[in-house]
């Protein structure tokens, strides 16, 4: 219950403040009844209270706020207009909510019979029903009966009177009816007015309805919203308790603690603090540098103390922005419960790691995606009880939410033990929705197939329910998580369940980054984009880096990695250094090597925005201030990739085939003016470029001198029955194939890409030198019969 107490305390603090705001908003609203903005704000506040009260099982509070919310949503949607009666009803709702909160704070819970909820609910209902006088009587009778059943006649009368007094005082609305006016009279008045009933009358109605008849409590709310649980069963309470002043705002001594123990701070102020502390840390760094060599012992001691204090201060300030994920999770039990009811599922919700903290801005951004994933789990994952039993699973499904810190990131896992995701079905749906073609699908690995659910316009729900299945789901989830620098991945076992794993950085304000040097400036590369560092010199450099049609690529453990020179990306000159320092980076699906001049170190950097004059440049994500006070730009790896036009290198699949050359991997080439051909990557030893001048003749064949030997050349285009492209450059691109001791250079136009996709060869285009054609990267590609192409040449050599 300790956890609960904490949550309740949080809820109280939040709600008290919200209610103060509400009061102001409501009064303001009366003056400007058309303000959608105000209405939306009020709606949100009430909605928040309602949501939390549902979770905390404050049922009466929930019932009350629910009706209020209904009314507000109608107002907001313009289906009703604001009148004095509406405002009155809403204000009395706010007052009652406040009374309930006080009761909760004082430990009596929201079932405290001293707080009259039902009459206010009835009042709201009436306003909602559209002020028809015919409706007035039954509702009142019903409510009165209900109230009576709960609290007893005297209490109601007393409460109503007090309520009226209080409200009249607060609203300064002229009292039209006597508090004890008989029902009929009031009804008549309503009829006479033929318009919204002023608030005081509403309350009077309730008062006049006493003494009531004890009848079965009839939940009024249920008709309005079937999804909401009926009001809590009446709790018999001593009349003495009920006679206590209801709207007494004087707190009991020593009970108000929760509200006072925390202070709400404007986030802008916090951001300002974060910035100042960042500045302080930089200044400290400068002072530390200077004092290192100082002789003054006192100065050294003082600077050490400064160092310590500054570090602690930084940590504390950062912590102020952190909030436990429990805030988001507090909404989940309710969501799960409602959905389970709606969908006819039985679900056990298990949540771990409430206390896991992350930056509040991230927490906000996480709410939507998390809710969506939970909904998905219930709608698509966990089966109906009957189906579960039929499969030998317990009827009640398990949904577990787990949050924890892992290497500077927050990991959130959503696991269900439902039916899992069947790649075959995903594939079928993807094809039928036109997300991928049948051929593309055939080439995809099961994992990649599962990833299809993140594509836009994809949804596997057979019927579109109002829970999910509108096909705007997972891609939005992924996009919103990626927007905050996170990632989503999924593992699923058919029949056993699905796990979605979200990773998000702890904070956006401070990130670890690698600082590199280029020219006279330093640049920061976010650690999140960093894969590895590679340094190549001498022979290694010559062996592993090749230039294909002007584009440098690195052979890295059997894969070709496109290289981008940072100098060139920054508009500088192309450098031809002795050694290459390559920072392998990854952004989205693209992985490439960034050649930099120097690598400094990794640092925690404070991300700062850059001016709008620079916003349009894709290369930068922001700027930061280094220890020496100078500004360094933060590189936007994804932006550079886009800018330097590096297509998606299918890095996702590369993960699977770490370190080994996939037997199916293909080197995609361009021959004969844009025609595509593909060679198995295993057959490729090296990629070379030769000056045309180096081509010599040996007999009828073209050869080049290569590595102390003679390399016979074969022009690929004529070998596979295509026309040779006219030479456009003074160099030729050559794929070197080595067969034992003999090598052959296959002359091509240029290398396009390396793909590790399953290709489906077709008989189409089968001819001498070509095994057939296949669709590779959406292009018809000739699969080269390597043996047929090189055999004549090798035969000549042997």
């Amino acid at each position: 219950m300790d956890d609960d107490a904490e949550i309740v305390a949080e809820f109280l603090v939040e709600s008290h403040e919200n209610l103060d705001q509400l009061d102001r908003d409501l009064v303001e609203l009366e003056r400007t009844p058309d303000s959608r903005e105000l209405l939306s704000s009020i709606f949100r506040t009430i909605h928040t209270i309602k949501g939390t009260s549902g979770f905390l099982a404050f049922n009466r509070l929930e019932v009350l706020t629910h009706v209020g919310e209904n009314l507000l949503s109608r107002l907001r949607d313009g289906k009703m207009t604001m009148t004095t009666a509406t405002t009155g009803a809403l204000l009395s709702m706010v007052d009652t909510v406040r009374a309930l909160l006080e009761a909760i704070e004082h430990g009596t819970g929201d079932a405290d019979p001293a707080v009259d909820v039902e009459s206010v609910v009835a009042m709201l209902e009436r306003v909602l029903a559209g002020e028809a006088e015919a409706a007035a009587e039954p509702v009142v009778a019903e409510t009165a009966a209900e109230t009576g059943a709960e609290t007893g006649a005297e209490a109601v009368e007393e409460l109503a009177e007090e309520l009226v007094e209080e409200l009249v005082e607060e609203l300064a609305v002229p009292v039209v009816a006597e508090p004890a006016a008989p029902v009929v009279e009031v009804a008549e008045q309503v009829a006479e007015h033929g318009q919204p009933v002023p608030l005081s009358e509403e309350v009077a109605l309730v008062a006049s309805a006493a003494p009531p008849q004890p009848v079965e409590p009839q939940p009024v709310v249920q008709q309005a919203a079937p999804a909401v649980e009926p009001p809590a069963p009446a709790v018999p309470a001593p009349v003495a308790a009920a006679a206590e002043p209801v709207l007494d705002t004087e707190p009991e001594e020593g009970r108000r603690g929760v509200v006072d123990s925390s202070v709400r701070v404007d986030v802008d102020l916090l951001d300002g603090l974060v910035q100042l502390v960042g500045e302080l840390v930089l200044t400290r760094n400068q002072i530390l540098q200077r004092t290192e060599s100082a002789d003054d012992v006192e100065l050294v001691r003082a600077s050490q103390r400064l160092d310590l204090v500054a570090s602690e201060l930084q940590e504390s300030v950062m912590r102020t922005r952190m909030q436990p994920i429990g805030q988001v999770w507090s909404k989940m039990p309710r969501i799960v419960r409602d959905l389970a009811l709606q969908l006819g599922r039985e679900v056990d919700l298990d949540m771990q790691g409430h206390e896991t903290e992350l930056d509040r801005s991230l927490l906000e951004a996480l709410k939507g995606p998390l809710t969506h994933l939970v909904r998905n789990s219930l709608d698509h994952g966990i089966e109906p009880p009957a189906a579960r039993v039929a499969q030998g699973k317990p009827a009640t499904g398990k949904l577990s939410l787990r949050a924890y810190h892992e290497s500077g990131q927050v990991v959130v896992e959503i696991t269900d033990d439902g039916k899992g995701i069947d790649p075959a079905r995903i594939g079928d749906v993807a094809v039928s929705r036109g997300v991928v073609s049948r051929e593309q699908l055939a080439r995809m690995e099961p994992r990649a197939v599962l990833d299809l659910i993140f594509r836009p316009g994809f949804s596997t729900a057979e019927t579109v329910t109002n829970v999910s299945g509108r096909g705007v789901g997972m891609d939005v989830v992924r996009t919103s998580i990626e927007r905050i620098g996170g990632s989503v991945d999924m593992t699923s076992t058919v029949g056993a369940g699905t796990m979605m794993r979200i990773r998000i950085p702890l904070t956006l304000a401070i990130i670890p980054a690698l600082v590199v040097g280029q020219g006279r400036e330093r640049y920061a590369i976010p650690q999140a984009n960093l894969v590895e560092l590679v340094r190549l010199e001498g022979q290694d450099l010559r062996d592993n880096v090749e230039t294909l049609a002007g584009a440098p690529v690195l052979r890295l453990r059997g894969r070709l990695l496109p290289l981008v020179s940072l100098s060139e990306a920054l508009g500088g000159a192309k450098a031809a250094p002795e050694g290459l320092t390559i920072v392998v980076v990854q952004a989205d699906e693209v992985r490439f090597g960034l050649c930099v001049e120097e690598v400094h170190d990794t640092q925690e950097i404070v991300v700062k925005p850059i001016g709008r004059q620079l916003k349009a440049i894709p290369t930068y994500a922001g700027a930061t201030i280094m220890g020496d006070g100078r500004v360094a730009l933060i590189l936007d790896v994804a932006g550079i990739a886009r800018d330097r036009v590096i297509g998606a290198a299918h890095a996702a699949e590369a993960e699977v085939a770490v370190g080994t050359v996939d037997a199916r991997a293909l080197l995609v080439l361009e021959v004969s003016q844009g025609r595509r051909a593909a060679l198995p990557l295993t057959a490729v030893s090296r990629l070379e470029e030769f000056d045309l001048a180096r081509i010599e003749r040996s007999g009828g064949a073209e050869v080049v001198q290569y590595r102390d030997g003679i390399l016979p050349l074969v022009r690929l285009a004529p070998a596979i029955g295509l026309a040779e492209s006219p030479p456009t450059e003074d160099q030729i691109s050559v794929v070197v194939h080595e067969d034992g001791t003999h090598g052959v250079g296959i002359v091509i136009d240029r290398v396009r890409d390396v793909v590790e996709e399953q290709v489906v060869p077709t008989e189409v285009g089968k001819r001498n030198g070509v095994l057939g054609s296949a669709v590779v990267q959406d292009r018809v590609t000739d699969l080269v019969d390597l043996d047929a192409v090189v055999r004549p040449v090798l035969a000549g050599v042997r």
Partner: protein
Amino acid sequence: MTATLTSPGAPTSAMTGQMCTFWVDGLYFGLQVEHVQEVLRYQQLTVVPCAPDAVHGLINLRGQIVTALDLRCRLGLPPRPEGELPMNVIVRSRGEVVSLLVDDIGDVIDTTDVPLQPTPANLPPTVQDVVGGVLPLPGSILLVVDAERAVDVSSPDTTGGTP
């Protein structure tokens, strides 16, 4: 007032009053003090490759990163001679802080009584683009800079950089 002008730099009454003055390439400029946050000596700059030409770099203004625009470049005037360090006029514009690099800083003068006149039409267009009007003072002519336009480097004629 000469509010009948239709040129984009039409002067308004809001362009007179207390003026912070400075020199760029021998020209005498003024900027309303309301727009000026502070004036700083030369600050170390971090160069921004690929940025528009007028963007000279970034400076660290007490932890805030501020874009420094070279007013000579913005005005289409010849570049500053080698070895001469510019001064920073820190300007607030649309919630952002931008530094204008100028040659030298003058005094703050009161020009309330001087009527603002339209920018002479024969001034280079790059200067007209930035200047909102002139104040003929005794002994000198003050070119009144429109802060909003000065910090806007999006117009194609001022972005010569390769993006």
